[in-house]
C-alpha cells in the first residue's frame, strides 16, 4: 500500500512538471502556430539563473525568483528577436527556426558557462521527508505537486476571468479576427510567450530542486516529453496539454516501478507505443482543440 501511495505521488509530481511544460508549448502553438523546441532552453536558462544567483550570494528563495524571472525574460527576448520576424510563416519554417534558436542557446550555455553540469545546492531541509499514514513522502515532490496545480489553476483563472485571457483565447481561435477587432496582437502574443516562460521557469525551479544540477541539455528531454504530451492531448488544446502531461508522467513512473527487469530497457518504447495506440484511437488527441490540428 505504501509503495502504491509513494509511486502515485512520484507519478503526479513528474506529470505536473510535464503538464506545465506542455501547457507552455500549447499556449504559444495555439496562438502563433509555433511548436517551440527552444522552450527547453528557456527552462535551462531559468536553471542557470538560479545557479548564478546562488553564486552571487542571493538567498535560495531569491535565487528561485530570479530563475523564474530569467526564464520569462528569455521567452520575451526570443519572441521579439527570433519569432516575431517569422510570424505568419508555415509550421515547418517555424519549427526549423525554433530548432535553430535552441541550438544557438545550447552552444552559448556550453561556451559561456560550462559544457558540464554545474551544481545547485539548496538547503538540506528542502530535501526532507514527512510521514503520512506510514508512507514517507518527500518535501520536494509534494511542493512540486502543489506548485504545479497552483500554476495550472492560476493560469486557468487568468485565461477565463481576465480581458487579457479572453484576448488570448480569442487569438487562439482566430488571430486575424482579433486584429480586425482592434486588439493589439503583438501584445497578446508577447503575453503568451511570457506565460510560457513563466511556466518554463517554474518547471526549472522544480527540476533543479529535484535534480541538483543544471547543464546545457537540461531542458531538452523534458520538453521532448512535453511535446509528446501536447500531441497526445491534442495540438493547440490547453486542457489536452495538461492531460497529456499527466498521462505521460504517470506512464513513465508506472512502467519504471512495475515493469519486470527484463523489460525495463524497453520502457520508453512501451510508453511511446501506448501513445501511438491512443492516437490511432483518437487521431486529434485526447482533448482536441475546437479548430483541431490533427496530431
Amino acid at each position: 500500500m505504501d509503495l502504491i501511495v509513494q509511486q502515485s505521488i512520484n507519478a503526479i509530481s513528474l506529470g505536473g512538471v510535464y503538464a506545465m511544460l506542455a501547457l507552455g508549448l500549447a499556449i504559444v502553438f495555439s496562438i502563433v502556430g509555433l511548436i517551440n523546441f527552444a522552450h527547453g532552453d528557456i527552462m535551462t536558462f531559468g536553471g542557470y539563473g538560479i545557479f548564478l544567483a546562488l553564486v552571487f550570494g542571493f538567498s535560495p528563495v531569491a535565487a528561485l525568483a530570479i530563475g523564474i524571472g530569467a526564464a520569462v525574460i528569455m521567452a520575451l527576448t526570443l519572441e521579439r528577436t527570433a519569432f516575431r520576424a517569422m510570424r505568419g510563416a508555415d509550421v515547418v519554417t517555424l519549427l526549423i527556426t525554433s530548432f535553430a534558436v535552441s541550438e544557438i542557446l545550447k552552444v552559448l550555455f556550453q561556451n559561456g558557462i560550462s559544457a558540464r553540469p554545474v551544481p545547485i545546492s539548496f538547503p538540506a531541509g528542502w530535501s526532507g521527508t514527512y510521514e503520512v499514514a506510514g508512507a514517507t513522502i518527500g518535501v520536494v515532490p509534494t511542493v512540486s505537486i502543489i506548485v504545479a496545480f497552483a500554476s495550472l489553476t492560476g493560469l486557468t483563472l487568468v485565461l477565463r476571468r481576465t480581458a487579457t485571457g479572453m484576448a488570448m483565447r480569442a487569438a487562439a481561435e482566430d488571430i486575424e479576427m482579433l486584429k480586425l477587432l482592434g486588439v493589439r496582437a503583438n501584445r497578446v502574443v508577447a503575453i503568451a510567450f511570457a506565460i510560457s516562460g513563466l511556466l518554463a521557469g517554474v518547471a526549472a525551479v522544480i527540476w533543479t530542486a529535484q535534480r541538483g544540477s543544471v547543464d546545457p541539455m537540461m531542458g531538452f528531454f523534458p520538453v521532448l516529453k512535453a511535446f509528446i504530451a501536447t500531441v497526445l492531448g491534442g495540438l493547440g488544446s490547453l486542457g489536452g496539454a495538461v492531460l497529456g502531461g499527466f498521462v505521460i508522467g504517470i506512464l513513465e513512473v508506472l512502467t519504471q516501478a512495475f515493469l519486470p527487469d527484463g523489460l525495463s530497457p524497453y520502457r520508453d518504447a512501451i510508453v511511446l507505443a501506448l501513445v501511438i495506440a491512443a492516437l490511432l484511437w483518437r487521431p486529434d488527441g485526447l482533448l482536441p482543440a475546437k479548430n483541431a490540428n490533427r496530431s
Partner: protein
Amino acid sequence: MIMRKLLLTTTSALVVAGAVQAEDYVIGVMSAQSGYLAPYDGPAYAGFQFCIDQKNAGGGLNGELMVKTIVKDTRSDIAEGVKVVQEMIDDGAQFIVSSADADPTIAAAQITMADGIPTMTFAGTAPVLTQVGPHVFGSYPADNQQGAVLAAYAREQGLENVYLVKSPDSAYTLGGPEYFGEVFESLGGNIVGTSNYSLNQPDFSAIVTTIKAAEPTPDVIVTWAWEPDFPAFIKALRGAGLDTQVMGGDVLDTPTVRGLGDVVDGVVHTSGGFPDEGSDYAKFIDDFKAATGTTPDNNYYVNGCDIANMIEQAVAAAGSTDPAAVAEAMAEIENGKGIMSDFTFKGTDRMPLRDVVVARITGAGEKEFVLRTTADPDLLPQP
C-alpha cells in the same frame, strides 16, 4: 623561363616541406566539444595537448620526433566520430586518440582496424572496448579493476547487502555495477536488488521507492551513473529519507558532484589518482595552472598527459613509427612511467593495470583519500 624557374623553385620547396612534415609523428584526436562527452573529452584533450606541447618544446617524443596533432570535433555523435577518424587517417594520422567512452572508441577502432593504427581511448573504462582488435588500448583503470577494488573495500567495511542501479544504455553504466556485484558476491556479499534507468532519465523517484521497499534492506547502493543522472538520483534518494551508503565509479570524481552539498556527504567512489603533496601529479597540477591559468580539477587532465607518455614510451620501444610496431610495443609495456600512476599493458587485454584510488566526499565538498591499491588479479571479473 622565369615562370619555369618559379614553378621549379615552388615545387622543390613543397617537396622539402613535405619531407619535413613526413618526419612528424601525426596523432589524430577525437574530442567532443559539445554533448555528453564534452565534460570528459575537453579536460583530457587539454592535458594531452599540454604534454605534447611540452615534449615538442624539448625536441619531440624522446627528444627527437616532433608531434603534429589533428584535432576534430565529434559533437559526442558516434556517426560523426567515425567520419572524423576516417578524415584523420586520410590526413596521415599514425595514432588515434579516441573519445572518453567505450562506444565511440569501439566505433573508431572499426575504422582504424584495416591499417592496424593504434587507437587509445581518452578515458573509456569498459574492458570490452579492447576486444575489437589488438590495435585498441585503454588508458584509465578499467571498470572491472575499479569494481573489484571498490567491492573489496565495501566488504572490508562490513557491508553485506548491495542494491545495484545501472543503465543498459552504455557499457560503462552497465558494466561497473555488474563487476562490483560479481566481486561482492564472490567475497560473501549479497545482491538484494537491481534497478535499470535510462541515460538522462528525468526522474529517479520510482527507483528510490523500489529501493526503499527492498528486502533485506541494502546497506550499500552502487551505481556508475554519471552527470546529470547521479545528481538527480542522489537528490531523490536523500529526499526520500534514505541515508544508505552510496558508492560509485570514477565518474563521481568531479567538482559538480562534490558541489551538491549535504546529499553527497560520505559518498565513496573510485578514482584513477590522487594528487598527494610532493607527487608528480601535484607538480603537473601546478605546471598546468601556471601555463594555462586553469586548475585541473579532475583526473582526465592528467590522464590525457599520461596518454602522451604512453605513446612516447611505445614509440621508443618500437624504435619506429610504423603503426603495427607501435601497437605491438605498447602491448608489451611493463611498469611504464606515468604521472597519475604507472601502467602495465603486458599480460593484460590492453586495458592497463594501474592503481585504483578509493576516495570519500566530505560534507565540505572535499575529496578525502581512503586507499590506493591495484586490483587483485584473482578477483578481477572477465568482460
